């Protein structure tokens, strides 16, 4: 499996995810500048976190018009796995590969903290080997992560089992206190209808080596493992 980490101007988690894929999971991985990215060269792609184009106008909207996104759309149609982390999730939303919107956090602040994330479905490429209901310890770091969608869109997400991850509290319950940014339905990550495009606000690459986590968490690997297997 050959995977690309697509770099946009302003990406800043690109090297972290590259390190985890290449050194921790030992996957053949390239860092690819967004104007050079070709779908045919890769079996999977990652849109990393950061502040592409300075978050101007709306986080993710300018990168969504990059030539790389046309290539990502081709990959998505071919059923190849695509994951967008944080700003990568915002880019997938703004390119309409995933539905809804990510608005400013309800707190009006940038939030950087470890949170509890519940795996709601294992019927995706990325959570296939995780039992439903598993709580993952993974950090978030964003200002615009409040997932919002119209009532019909939310109904569709629920009915099609597209809500992959939810924020929960210490006891694993869906509560206001467990929902850091005010996301609708406590949504932390969703997938598309074909279940091969996945966007999430938490950073699995920051929870991939126990020694780097205050909770000795390497839960992020459970998601990123997807790229090991073809």
């Amino acid at each position, binding site marked *: 499996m050959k995977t690309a980490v697509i770099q946009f101007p302003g990406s800043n988690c690109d090297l972290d995810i590259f390190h985890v894929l290449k050194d921790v999971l030992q996957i053949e991985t390239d860092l690819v500048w967004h104007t050079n990215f070709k779908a045919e060269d890769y079996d999977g792609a990652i849109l990393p976190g950061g502040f592409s184009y300075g978050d101007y106008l709306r986080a993710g*909207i300018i990168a969504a018009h990059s030539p790389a996104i046309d290539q990502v759309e081709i990959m998505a149609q071919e059923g190849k796995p695509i994951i967008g982390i944080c700003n990568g999730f915002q880019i997938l939303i703004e390119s309409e590969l995933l539905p809804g919107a990510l608005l400013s956090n309800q707190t009006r602040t940038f939030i950087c903290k470890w949170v509890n994330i519940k795996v709601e479905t294992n019927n995706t490429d990325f959570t296939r080997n995780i039992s439903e209901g598993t709580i993952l310890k993974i950090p978030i770091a964003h200002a615009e992560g409040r997932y919002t969608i119209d009532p019909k869109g939310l109904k569709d997400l629920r009915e099609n089992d597209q809500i992959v991850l939810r924020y929960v509290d210490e006891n694993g319950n869906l509560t206001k206190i467990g929902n850091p940014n005010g996301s609708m339905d406590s949504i932390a990550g969703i997938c598309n209808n074909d279940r091969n495009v996945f966007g999430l606000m938490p950073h699995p690459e920051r929870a991939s080596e126990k020694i780097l986590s205050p909770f000795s968490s390497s839960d992020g690997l459970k998601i990123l493992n997807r790229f090991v297997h073809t």
Partner: protein
Amino acid sequence: MPSFNVEIIIENKKMARDPEGETITRDLINRGGFQSITNVRTGKYLKLSVKAEKKEEAEHIVREMSNSLRIYNPVVHTCSIRIKSEEL
């Protein structure tokens, strides 16, 4: 060709709470003694110069651009377009 000033205002729909507006209402306006102001909704304002033969054409160009490039996210935003004036 004449040039027109066109404004775009992007606002959150009612369904999407606006924490910036809520904070301005509560912690600036109400705290500052203006109790009669009960609600503020923030948005984004873009001012464009558009070359076109007529007002209607300028508006049409901006509307088409806004929709095709997703200048707003139709799931959560409304987008209003106003022709301000013809530039001299």
